[in-house]
């Protein structure tokens, strides 16, 4: 019997929601890491019991947690006194040590001067598709790190910051690698997206990266609307069967590329507003895309107080509002960029979390919705594991 396990990161802890394949009745487990900000949790496809979590705090900094039993128990990898006691002696406790490689370098600061990179937190964890001990981490200030020992130690892939990093400038929400997409057909290819910098691609497993922002237009955010870097990409999404096709929710605009980011085209079509944060693709229909339109960059809540997911079955341009089971009046929550996901059950399930603490789920591709849980802390991220 298949099951769904939804991993929810919130401002004050993590929650794990589980259900059978029907996805009607849910068990809510948590809070894990109570009181800490959980930016993201994600399970390994190679070993679903392996889950990585990013735990952080303004007081105590970054912690990486790992579960090897599907979220029942957690440990910061390599940080127990009995761990790593080899010939060198003391345990290292380096699972939260994120140090930029080489000379730190600088990026553009708010006043136009250059500012040194400073590690703040991990926004996103992306486990390898094939090896549970390998995981990528997207950091603020923007950088990508990689572990090959299950999270005990992390090493930066510094080539990303070499992709015109000196020109990147944080926006009001900071400057973080918030999206990491792995190509199932090509292990050397990785896509990332960075708030206020844009989208980037490597074709050599992270050694070198290039901006892939041609076709993006930011007339109200950048002096040059067609700049090579600086665009505020909110999220990109890929269907695993079509790795050259990516869908993007930008600060404003919804776009797609069919050539791995070499050129993007606007697919906003009839959306009531093309501002928003998350975007995702149906598990079985590579041309079916979901977004949650938000009124504007100045008013981060749904248009007219109606929480509506929009679905395009044609890869963009033509969008349909999905409203059944979602609040259609007095709703002023936001849905953050990492807070929507799809399962691979049949029919495909869609999930998203709000800053008002609800997690909504649809077990039929978005036609009908219900709140799985309400009144959690503000939801930062939602991921789902489909368990066989």
């Amino acid at each position, binding site marked *: 019997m298949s099951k769904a396990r939804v991993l929810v990161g919130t401002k004050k802890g993590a929650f794990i929601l589980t259900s059978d394949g029907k996805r009607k009745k849910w068990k809510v487990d948590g809070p894990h890491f109570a*009181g*800490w900000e959980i930016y993201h949790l994600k399970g390994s496809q190679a070993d679903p019991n392996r889950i990585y979590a990013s735990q952080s*705090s*303004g*007081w*105590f*900094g*970054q*912690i990486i947690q790992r579960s090897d039993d599907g979220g029942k128990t957690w440990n*910061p990898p*390599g*940080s*127990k*006194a009995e*761990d790593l006691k080899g010939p060198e002696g*003391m*345990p*290292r*406790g*380096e699972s*939260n*040590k994120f*140090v930029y490689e080489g000379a730190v370098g600088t990026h553009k600061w708010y006043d136009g001067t250059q500012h040194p990179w400073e590690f703040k937190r991990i926004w996103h964890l992306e486990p390898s598709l094939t090896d549970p001990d390998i995981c990528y981490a997207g950091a603020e200030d923007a950088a990508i790190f990689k572990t090959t020992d299950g999270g005990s130690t992390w090493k930066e892939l510094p080539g990303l910051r070499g992709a015109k990093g000196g020109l990147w400038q944080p926006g009001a929400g900071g400057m973080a690698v918030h999206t990491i997409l792995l190509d199932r057909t090509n292990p050397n290819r990785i896509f990332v997206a960075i708030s206020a910098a844009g989208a980037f691609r490597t074709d050599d497993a992270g050694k070198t990266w290039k901006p892939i922002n041609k076709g993006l237009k930011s007339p109200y955010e950048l002096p040059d609307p067609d700049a090579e870097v600086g665009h505020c990409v909110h999220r990109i999404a890929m269907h695993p069967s079509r790795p050259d096709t990516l869908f993007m929710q930008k600060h404003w605009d919804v776009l797609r590329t069919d050539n791995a980011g070499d050129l993007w085209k606007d697919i906003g079509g009839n959306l009531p507003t093309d501002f928003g944060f998350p975007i995702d693709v149906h598990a079985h229909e590579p041309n079916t895309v979901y977004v949650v339109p938000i009124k504007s960059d100045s008013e981060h809540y749904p248009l007219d107080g109606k929480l509506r997911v929009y679905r395009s079955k044609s890869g963009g341009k033509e969008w349909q509002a999905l409203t059944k089971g979602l609040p259609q009046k007095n709703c002023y929550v936001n849905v953050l960029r990492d807070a929507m996901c799809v399962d691979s059950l049949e029919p495909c399930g869609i999930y998203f979390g709000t800053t008002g603490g609800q997690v909504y789920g649809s077990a039929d591709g978005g036609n009908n919705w219900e709140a799985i849980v309400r009144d959690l802390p503000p939801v930062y991220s939602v991921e789902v594991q489909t368990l066989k």
Partner: protein
Amino acid sequence: MRVMLPFHLRKLASVDGGEVELQVGKPATVAAVLDALEAKYPVLRGTVRDHVTLKRRPFIRFFACKEDLSLEPPETQLPEAVVNGDEPFMIIGAMAGG
């Protein structure tokens, strides 16, 4: 030596009660206490002071014998009452305010 930890660090280190006991070499300085703490509880590395620069995290405070040692140099020697265990060395999460 007795070292008092804030709630979240006690949970992280799986410590019962409010304090931990540490063997601290001489001279017993702020840095020596933190070295001993991190050696016994590696999970706390990076949570009180930076991994590389060893600078105190901004919202952490060090109190001892009603004195704030947070801004003192790491080589500052601790009061005798802390060294002999009559008083704890207190690691505090600063008030959030607001």
